[in-house]
Structure formats: C-alpha cells, structure tokens
C-alpha cells in the first residue's frame, strides 16, 4: 500500500477509475462533480487514454455505449440533472448488456435544483433510471476511501455481469478531502475476456451484435426473463452492507452515504445517554441488503431511516420490515445536511415512545 494522501472524493474516484483500467472517459461539466472530469482531462492524455468533453450529457452516455460495445472499460460522471439526461442511454446499455461506470454526485432537485449535497436520486438510481424492465448495480460509498474501493468493485461487477454500474455519491463526498490510499492491484486480473465485443475481425469469426432492439415480443420477453434470472443471482450474492453497534440495539437507523456518517454520530450520542441504537448502512443500494434488515426485525424495537431527501429508501425498508416493527423517517432536502443533534432528537423521541 502507498502512503495516505488527502484527496477530494471526486479526484480520488477519478484516480481509482484510471487504476482500474478505465481509459475512456466521456463527460460534461456540472457542479458538484466537475473535478472528476477535470482530473481525467489532465491525466488521460498522459497515459494514452481518451478524455472527451461531449457536447451534452446525452452525447457522453452514447459515447460510453460505443466504447463499452468495443469492449473497453468506459465511464461517465455527472450530477443529478445530468443523470436525468443520460437516462435514455443507460436504458439502452442495460438493454444491450453493456458494462460501464456512471457516477452521480447528487445535488438538490428537482429541476436544476441547487448545487449542495442531496440524496434525492435514490428512486432514480434503484428503480427508474430509464424506461423498461431493468436494474443497474448501485454503490453508495460513505467515505473517500470507500469511493476508491467501490470504483474497482463497480467496474469488476459491471464486467462480470455485463451491466451498467452506478456510483451514487453526493456533493459532500465529492467535495470533501479525506485521507486515502490506493491498492496496488493489477486491474487486468479482473477484466474478463469480452468475446461479445465489437472489435473488428475481418470475417475471421461470426459477427457479434450489440443491440437493444427486439421487435418480436416473444424474443424480447425471453431475453428480459433471462436477464432477470441474472438479477436474482446478483440479489442473492452481491448485496453489501455494514452494521454499526447493532448487536444489542433497540433502535436501528438505516442510512447510506453521507447521511450514514451523521447517523453513526447520532447513535454514539444516543448511547452516551443510555439509548441502545445502531446503524445498518447499505453499501449497495441495488442489490439492496435486505437480509440484515429482515434479521434485525426480530430484535430491534423500531427503525429510523435517515436520508437527505423527503423519504425514498424508506420505502424499501418498509417493504422488508413489512409492518413487523414501526419504521420512522427523518430527512432534510434541498441541499441541507442533517445534523447529528437533529437525528439524536428523533432517536430520543422514538425511545421515549417505546418506554
């Protein structure tokens, strides 16, 4: 391992992508993720890669489509409004079984919204990234170091399952500096052979076709059903989460990304006041880590979901808890980061009600 250096989340994720073997970046600037593109613009030409500032987000995602179809590791990054523009292209890539990495450093919405941190794109990332029956892998790191680690993981799993992966961060993680170290790894070790790629072969083999258009309903249904078997396998095998002080917890907070850091701090404060609280932190948002939440239902008295939104992930927690225990919600939106004190207040309210 190299020494720990201070880096902004945006720059660290860009560096991690380079080290994961990504040599093709297509993007369009938008606050608060512009440092990703700026870093790529500086580094890519020096290592023989391609950095291209497209004319729009839509163009950028379609360039990713083309590069991914040719079998290379390709990525784009943006922030909330820009991701909405990429939605069509992401759906096409899911429909064509193409791997890639898409970073969304979320800001307040809807519309142009604001530029401060937000988590209001959870539904978009996990349920409706674009039209049609499909899922993408969604990773939600909570530290700059974890942003680095998830970039490697996201590229690897995207290649393994031939599907788009998203790194869902927020303005706080993108802009903050934290110590980070990069693993000394050989990315080629994790890049599988892509015998489906469109690489040009002078008729030496059968043609490969990368396409998302299937006009025969039965052919399309068969393909989608087959793809959902893959999704089932991923749900069973790839969900990631962290548990913090959950062992004896009466109140389980569920939070991801930036808000999970606030939740942990609130839980520490609650424990100092004699309230047994813990945090389940999803690291993958799709597949969602439903098992630990399901298991917690037998011991915990209540759940509190904390998000920087009006309440989106809370729907998934309620589906898993399914009425067995009360599921409370606390959120701030529009670019406001909740304080540990605000969250502690909610924990105390719930603890009071339980006693």
């Amino acid at each position, binding site marked *: 391992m190299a020494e720990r250096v201070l880096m902004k989340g945006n720059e660290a994720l860009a560096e991690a992508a380079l080290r994961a073997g990504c040599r093709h970046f297509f993007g369009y600037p938008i606050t608060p993720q512009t440092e990703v593109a700026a870093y790529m613009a500086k580094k890519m030409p020096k290592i023989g890669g391609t950095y291209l500032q497209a004319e729009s987000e839509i163009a950028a995602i379609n360039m990713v489509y083309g590069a991914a179809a040719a079998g290379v590791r390709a990525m784009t990054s943006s922030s909330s409004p820009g991701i909405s523009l990429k939605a069509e292209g992401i759906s096409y890539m899911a429909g064509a079984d193409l791997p890639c990495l898409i970073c969304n450093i979320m800001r307040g919405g809807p519309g142009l919204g604001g530029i401060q941190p937000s988590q209001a794109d959870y539904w978009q990332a996990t349920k409706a990234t674009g039209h049609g029956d499909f899922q993408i892998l969604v990773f939600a790191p909570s530290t700059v170091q974890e942003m680095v680690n998830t970039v490697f993981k996201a590229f690897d799993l995207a290649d393994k399952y031939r599907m788009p992966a998203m790194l869902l961060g927020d303005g706080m993680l993108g802009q903050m*500096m934290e110590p980070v170290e990069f693993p000394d790894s050989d990315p080629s070790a994790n890049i599988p052979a892509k015998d489906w790629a469109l690489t040009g072969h002078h008729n030496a083999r059968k043609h490969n076709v990368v396409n998302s258009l299937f006009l025969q309903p039965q052919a399309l249904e068969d393909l989608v059903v087959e793809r959902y078997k893959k999704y089932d396998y991923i749900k069973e095998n790839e969900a990631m989460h962290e548990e913090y002080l959950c062992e004896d917890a009466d109140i389980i907070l569920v939070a991801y990304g930036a808000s999970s850091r606030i939740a942990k701090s609130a839980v520490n404060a609650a424990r100092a006041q004699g309230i047994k609280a813990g945090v389940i932190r999803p690291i993958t948002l799709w597949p969602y880590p439903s098992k630990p939440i399901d298991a917690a239902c037998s011991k915990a008295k209540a759940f509190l979901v904390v998000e920087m939104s009006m309440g989106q992930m809370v729907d998934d927690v309620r589906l898993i808890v399914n009425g067995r225990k009360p599921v409370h919600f606390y959120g701030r939106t529009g670019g406001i980061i909740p304080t540990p004190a605000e969250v502690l207040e909610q924990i105390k309210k719930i603890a009071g009600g339980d006693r």
Partner: protein
Amino acid sequence: MATQNIILAGFGGQGILFAGKVMAYCGLMEGKEVSWLPSYGPEMRGGTANCSVCLSDEPISSPLVLNPDVLIAMNGPSYDKFANVMAKDGKIFIDSTLVNGKKFPDGVAVFEVPATQLAQDQDLSGLANIILLGKVLKETQFASMEAVKKGIEKCVPPSKTHLIEANMRAIQLGMSL
C-alpha cells in the same frame, strides 16, 4: 483533544482553502482522522470563501462544521457569519488588519492578529493566512512543529517548493505573537 472542529473563512484569494488543507495534512501527519470540506456554493464567487476542517481521534461523522471550536476569520463578513455559532470555550482568530470594530461574544477567547499588515512588513506577501495559522498553533497546539513542517511540504505544489521556507517563517512569526 478528542476532536477539533475548525472553520477558516475570508475572501477568495486569501489562501483560506490552502491554510485549511495545511491543517488537515498536519492532522494526517499526526495519525489523526481528518476531513476538509470547502464551501463551493455561489459565495465562492466574490463573497466569502470558507472551509471546514475536522481533526479527531475518532472517525469523523459530518465534515461540515456548524459550531466551530476554532474560527479563523480573515474578513468582516466571515466573522459576522460564524462568531455567534462558536462552540463553548471556542477560540476566534481574526486578521485585525481587516476585521475591526467588532463586538466579541461572551465565553469565547478572541485573538487579534494584524496578519495582513505583518505579512506586508515582514516580506511575507500573501502569507497572512499562514501567520494566523502560526498563532492558532501556539494557542491550540493542534499539531507538532514537525507535523506542521511536513504538512506545509505536502501542500506546497512541486513547482513552488521555494515558498516552503517563507511559509515556515510565517508560522514562526505567528507563534511569536
């Protein structure tokens, strides 16, 4: 000192973000958990620039400092914005060349350093921020001198290594006040 939450604030161009980065690197050199978060909103364009720095023995929850233990204020608007949200027993360091005529809040120690004037007088142009940092170091001991030296070496870009010596002189000047 379990956790120190710091806000550095001033005009763009005063080296606010740089000084914050030096503090964060000092913490890192001491083996602490550290974070640095800049304001990146519209206030970056013309008004006040500020950044939050956390130095802690524990993992840092929110890098956004709302109630600072230490405030470095390099202009009037910055002082007005944060002086009344200080944590208990907080310490405020102001550049008194640029901030004056202020009412000081109760329960907070205020250190007035004419940093901009000193920088001009001592041939340390552009290093008022680091002079203030020297004073903060003296009053809070947020890091060892060795860590500060290493921190500055990490933050000064390779093309400007000749400025390391001036930065260290600015630290020493601040500490002598």
